């Protein structure tokens, strides 16, 4: 491979890494506020993308999908936010606070429940996702030379993801809601003493994370062209890897790690092929766990 091929692989990968970053942010947000992992998160995000297909099918009047492209993303985000709230209610709200095992197990149960519902609703067949991006992007390729081009659909996804991240950061750092969320994340009891409803803040965080996940789900659908329950496990694993590499609880970490994993993954793909790609991503995680367990931006974990 020549240098320009690497450049192409990294560029495509970093742009695709945008949805890893979004999923990583979702895991990290929930971890930051609740100190727990929601293993059903990526499944709920895909649930949103499936729901947007359902909405599109309902509103389908002509031969083509009846929804404008951006509405597909919106429908997916809203539905995923709703599913995230359901997951919060059935897995987090009533399980004991100081016994993480119960919550963790419940989210694994929710993962399989959502996966099975998706399998049943679609008879286990992959569903075609409309090429919504082609409605937005006129020219599918921005060519710089024979060997290097930027794919228009990926660029659109990348920009959309950046906008979503910017909105999230504004929400967290410039609004009262964000202040409450950060307060609960920092010192739960103190936040409660200031009159913040921890339960409501937790639920809101889940919904925000769910909305981001729904966007990521629709983006993946649009970029890959199909939705399949077979995507649930790999995306959950990738999202978790991104979360750990970025540092648990760190949003900038999740963004950087998402783009990093996306870029490196595409290089591994080019060098070693699809069957071995993910093994190298996991080796990267093991390297981080061995030498920098707090991740890129995480706080150093001292022995307690």
């Amino acid at each position, binding site marked *: 491979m020549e240098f320009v091929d690497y450049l192409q692989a990294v560029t495509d990968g970093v742009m695709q890494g945008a949805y890893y970053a979004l999923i990583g942010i979702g895991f990290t947000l929930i*971890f930051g506020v609740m*100190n*727990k*992992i929601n*293993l059903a998160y990526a499944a709920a995000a895909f649930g949103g993308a499936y729901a947007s297909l359902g909405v599109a099918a309902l509103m389908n009047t002509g031969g083509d999908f009846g929804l404008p492209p951006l509405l597909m993303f919106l429908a997916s985000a809203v539905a995923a936010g709703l599913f995230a709230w359901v997951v919060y209610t*059935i*897995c987090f709200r*009533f*399980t*004991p606070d100081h*016994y*993480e*095992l*119960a*919550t*963790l*197990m*419940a989210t*694994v*149960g*929710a*993962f*399989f*429940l*959502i*996966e*099975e*519902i998706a*399998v*049943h609703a679609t008879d286990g067949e992959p569903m075609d996702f409309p090429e919504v991006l082609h409605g937005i992007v006129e020219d599918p390729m921005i060519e710089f030379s024979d060997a290097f081009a930027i794919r228009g659909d990926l660029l659109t996804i990348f920009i959309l993801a950046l906008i979503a991240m910017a909105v999230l950061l504004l929400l967290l750092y410039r609004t009262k809601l964000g202040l409450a969320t950060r307060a609960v994340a920092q010192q739960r009891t103190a936040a409660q003493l200031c009159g913040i409803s921890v339960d409501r803040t937790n639920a809101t965080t889940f919904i925000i994370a769910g909305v981001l996940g729904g966007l990521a789900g629709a983006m993946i659908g649009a970029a890959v062209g199909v939705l399949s329950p077979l995507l649930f*496990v790999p995306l959950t*694993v990738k999202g*978790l*890897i991104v*979360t*750990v590499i970025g540092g*648990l609880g760190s949003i900038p970490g999740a963004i950087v790690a998402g783009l990093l994993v996306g870029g490196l993954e595409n290089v591994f793909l080019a060098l070693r092929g699809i*069957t*071995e790609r*993910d*093994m190298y991503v*996991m*080796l990267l*995680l*093991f390297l981080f*766990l*061995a030498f920098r*367990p707090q991740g890129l931006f995480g706080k150093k*974990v001292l022995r*307690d």
Partner: protein
Amino acid sequence: MDDFTWGLVQIVGVHTILGLSAYVILLTGQVSMAQAGFVAIGAYVAGMLTVLAEWHIIPAMVTGGLAASVLACIVGFPALRIRGLMLVVATIAFGEFVRLFWFNFDYRIAKGDIVVGPEGGEGFKQIRFFPENGWTTQDVAAFVWVVAAIILATLWWMDRSRAGKVLRAVGEDEMAAQSVGINLTVVKVAAFTAGGFIAGIAGAIYAHYTTHIEHLNFDILMATFAIAYPILGGLANVWGTLFAAFFIQVIVIEVLRDLGDVRNLMFGALIILVMNFLPHGLFSAKVVRKLKEWMGIGKMSDA
């Protein structure tokens, strides 16, 4: 009983062993989502030993278990630096890594007029030790349960010995355990090693009774089964795991077969329900104490 029922007896036995492999690790308060990976190592190693090297099943099974325990020991060490939820992520990734390793693993040799051995994504076919040696389904079921009984008895005995107390002490409160002189490193790594060995044994048996394994057998669902049995059954003693394996494999999956695919939904829903209403599992320490009082045993014990 027909062959189908005997087959079910085998499945419950192997799943009980699988659940016990996670039980040992859970006692120390660690969650391992890598059990399916250890099962895969035991399955492939033992399968290759009986098929390619023509070993007997018992040494092959023990070697498969040892191979898995070596890997588990290696996984156990980072578990000391990373804790709690990070360990969940690390073990999920490790389990998937092992699965992908076998997906890419190709090693076949000609044996007579057929080629045998693991063949990457196609899987590992023709693991025919049982049929070739004339074992009937009943013999295999008996073999599975002898192994399961040995492991159940060993863990039951361990639970009542000092070793069990030490494991539970680490699980309850690491700092308190450390302050009375318990070496956390030794305890945690030992628990992982033992859990890996038991999972490897489960894998070796699994490979031989199904005769055909592939990487997809050892996915997150299997890892979930492993931790679900002890967690749903309760960590008070080994019987909870046995009961949960029986309940899920026989009642939820087989007896309700008439419900069709809907029963797959029930596994997830069942976990969520139990965790909301009985977060410490069905046979939690409290329930077991009540049961003992009710039956009039154990009143004089230290309970």
